[in-house]
């Protein structure tokens, strides 16, 4: 692979096709399916929001897309085909490594902790460049500067800073810069705003939105905050207990949620206008080890709309209208 990256302004955006993906964690109590038979098409050029509570498997899914599930997790079966790269799960190690960074950029959950505390940010940019055989390191630094400046930061100061000299919001931006500096066409953001206050969150989201539009990239946003997805994403994918519960176009899902879990998540958002009594807390606890073992619907324990059938059979994940899929026995086909 050459050292000069192509400017992908006019190239076709990269899509990802996930088929029958299964990731298990080996624990003392046996094998826990963190991601269980997931089929998902991530459309190129769109922002896809994957939402779920703690333990829903959303972060594991993100790591599986990169084929970088940490021990003791293991990808058991399935395929993750990235356009122009191939199946991440069968590529040889070196091509995988090259794809991560150059094709797939990843912004970690705790960007605060993903930087090396002992070297300056600028040196880490150079390290990244060397490990990806970039010949024009000066150009790489220039691009890093452009990106940082683009995100409203004093680029020279940031590049010469150590991570502890940067605030949470600034580190998150530096994380985004690292994901984009090699011109990745797919950017995966894992809980990019969780540790940030509202204002930093809003500006980080604004940055993601504008860079996404400018560069025609594919963005995957992983979060537990329905508000973040509702604001930013083109498509929503709702995950529960390692499986997909619902997906569809954002405005459509927000306005007409079909799965009882999705409805609950939307109702649980406190709002700044309108009637407060409309906000209702979601009952029960997020899925735990026991949840994965039950044969019926994973959401059965917490579901206000459950029927007898739900306890014995797991609902299939089926099409429920254009661009819409739902796993629930209670959902009637759209009229």
């Amino acid at each position, binding site marked *: 692979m050459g050292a000069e990256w192509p400017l992908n302004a006019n190239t076709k955006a990269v899509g990802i096709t996930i088929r029958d993906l299964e990731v298990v964690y080996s624990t003392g109590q046996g094998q826990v399916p963190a991601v269980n038979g997931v089929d998902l098409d991530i459309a190129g050029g769109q922002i896809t929001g994957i939402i779920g*509570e*703690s333990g829903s498997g959303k972060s594991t899914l993100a790591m599986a897309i990169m084929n970088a599930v940490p021990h003791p997790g293991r990808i058991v079966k399935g395929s993750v085909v990235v356009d122009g790269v191939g199946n991440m799960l069968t590529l040889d190690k070196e091509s995988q490594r090259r794809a991560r960074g150059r094709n797939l950029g990843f912004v970690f959950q705790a960007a605060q902790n993903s930087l090396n505390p002992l070297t300056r940010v600028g040196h880490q940019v150079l390290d990244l460049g060397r490990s990806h055989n970039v010949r024009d390191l000066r150009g790489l630094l220039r691009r890093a500067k452009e990106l940082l400046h683009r*995100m*409203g*930061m004093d680029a020279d100061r940031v590049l010469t800073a150590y991570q502890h000299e940067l*605030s*949470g*919001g*600034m580190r998150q931006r530096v994380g985004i810069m690292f994901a984009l500096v090699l011109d990745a066409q797919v950017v995966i953001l894992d809980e990019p705003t969780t540790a940030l*206050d*509202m*204002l*930093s*969150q*809003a*500006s980080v*989201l*604004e*940055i993601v939105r504008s860079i996404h539009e400018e560069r025609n990239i594919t963005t995957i946003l992983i979060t*537990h*905050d*329905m*508000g*973040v997805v*509702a*604001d*930013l994403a083109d498509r929503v994918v709702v995950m529960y207990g390692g499986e997909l519960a619902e997906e569809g176009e*954002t*405005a*459509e*899902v*927000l*306005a007409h949620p079909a799965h009882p879990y999705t409805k*609950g*998540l*939307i109702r*649980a*958002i*406190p*709002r*700044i*206008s*309108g009637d*407060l009594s409309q*906000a*209702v*807390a*979601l*009952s029960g*606890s*997020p899925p735990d080890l026991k949840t994965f073992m039950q044969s019926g619907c994973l959401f059965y324990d917490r579901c206000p709309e459950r029927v007898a059938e739900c306890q014995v059979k797991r609902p299939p994940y089926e099409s429920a209208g254009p661009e819409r899929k739902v796993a629930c026995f209670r959902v009637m086909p759209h009229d």
Partner: protein
Amino acid sequence: MIEVRSLEKTFPGKHGLLGHDAVKAVQDVSFRIPDGGAVSFIGESGCGKTTIGRILAGLENYTAGEVLIDGQNLATVDRRQREAVLRRVQLIQQDPYQALNPARTIEQALSDPLKVMAKARGADTAWILERMEEVLGLVGLEPQTVVHKYPHMLSGGQRQRIVIARALTVEPSVLVADEAVSMIDVSLRLGVLKLLRDLREKFHISLIFITHDVASARYVGEDGQMFVIYKGMIAEQGPTDDVILHPQHPYTQALLSAVPVLKGLESPGSDRYIPLKELDHGQSPENACLFAPRCPFAQPLCETERPALQGASGHQYACHYPQERHVVAVALKE
């Protein structure tokens, strides 16, 4: 009732290698909370809102001003009384994962403060158990299922409920909730917020709610007062819904703009704006508006004169050019 007048807190500077000057964390903050009332402090990380909460909970001294809790001045009461006064103010901290000792069961965590209470009123062990069940019931947990558990066996939301239950054991009249829900999954936050709201209504416990999230501040204290804090000073204050629906200060408007807009249900307010620049923690010039460096509407006057709070007594704002802007999302008609 709590009354705070011209509160000020200055942290001494670190002279030496970095040569920082003293940091003014809180400047000229005054407010009062009636029994059963609610006050929320909103602002970014580092704006000084946590310091205010810690001062009220007695964990931090203040440099100047007066803090009166039920008429007693914190600076002048003797040590005995101070303890009794401060027991009535309980702090609920941000991180329920660190607030509980991982090696002790919930029963042990709750029985310590209850033993102190029992001793004070000459009650026996039966009273302790009874009271324990009562507070756990109040926070919406099943006593039998949680008392023998360790903190790691509970979810974030359940842990925060335990922390609240522990605060309730000493029968406080004021709860100071400092970012009490920000570490909890969004799906479970509302449950904890509802609990705080119910405690206010049922037991007349006043609530001081410190947060960066305007929406949750509104949920627990719709009928209360809201204080928008910027760099230790009040930028805007007033009845909660008034501040949210008719914000006058550009900083309040930025915070309101930052609330995510739900596609398909809402459309963004016509004047929504989000400042890309981060809060700088450096010293601000004495005679300039604190928010001027980030304010998109700043004029030359803002650089040379610090605005004082102005406006009708109910709703005040520290801005030279106050103007209402429509930044809150509007619900779409079905």
